[in-house]
């Protein structure tokens, strides 16, 4: 048993499962976005704003943002533990990554529910 305190779920198994579940959600969100943009070639502000005004789209988008946050944390944490061997640098980079993910997540919520 190798102990870790900076990975997302504190367990390799939960990280592994979350990584796969979040990948599926992100793939569905990407497919939806690409499909929507292709089907609306003359997209105007009202339609775009209306899409994100609906509750189901906010749920879907927030789900995608949270999935993105978890997915990025798990993936980049793995990269730091593979390639950054000096502890001080590794912890600093992990802290920056986690802070950035938190900022983007809150920002995303603000964009979804703001204005």
């Amino acid at each position: 048993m190798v102990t870790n305190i900076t990975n997302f779920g504190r367990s390799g198994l939960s990280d592994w499962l979350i990584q796969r579940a979040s990948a599926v959600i992100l793939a569905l969100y990407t497919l939806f976005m690409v499909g929507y943009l292709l089907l609306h070639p003359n997209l105007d502000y009202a339609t775009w704003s209306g899409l994100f005004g609906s509750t189901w789209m906010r749920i879907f988008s927030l789900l995608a943002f949270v999935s993105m946050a978890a997915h990025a944390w798990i993936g980049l944490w793995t990269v730091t533990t593979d390639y950054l061997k000096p502890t001080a640098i590794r912890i600093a980079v992990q802290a920056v990554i986690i802070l950035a993910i938190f900022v983007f997540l809150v920002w995303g919520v603000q964009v979804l529910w703001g204005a």
Partner: protein
Amino acid sequence: MSMLQVSVYRYNPETDSAPYMQEFQVDTQGRDVMVLNVLAMIKEQDSSMAYRRSCREGVCGSDGMNMNGKNGLACITPLSEVVKGGKLTLRPLPGLPVIRDLVVDMALFYKQYERIQPYLQNDTPEPAIERLQSPEDRDKLDGLYECILCACCSTSCPSFWWNPDKFVGPAGLLQAYRFLADSRDEATSERLAELEDPFSVFRCRGIMNCVAVCPKGLNPTRAIGKIREMLLANAT
């Protein structure tokens, strides 16, 4: 005369400040010999050349090395399989500390093997004759018990290169599953608890280098997948 040009990794820490490649011309007399035979011919030219070998028939696992970029056992690898353009490059197994020439320090590899407790654990008093196993349960061990611990797989795995102290590696995980799959073993939940962290099993990225190089044709990636399935079934 059919000369083979062989480039060999040389390093003697007592006299060399850095490793270097040494060129040899070897006369194979046109025969498709094994790489180990070529090493024997090189040793006749330069007796300071160091490499491990023992059974010379792919059973002991001593002569694992990197031949033209691919790990394998020198004793069962014919020249026709590895030589490209009349050239052969021999290096030690990648990722492990070099003791001398083609001899590597396998301590970390063995430490990971030891960690998975590679022995049957059963506290039930033994029956009068032996612990019986159905033919079906015995079949589950095929493709697992044949590993000879040559380290070709683990030293071809980038995840093992970066974290040899934390990631068990394909060889160790194949053996971990060999005991998880054994119907006579009673330590399954303890074994699984030791493996659920982000490194021991889950640092495997499934690139299957281990499967590509295994000289015994075993499939550690499949075993790792089975361990993941057991962990998942146990924890959800």
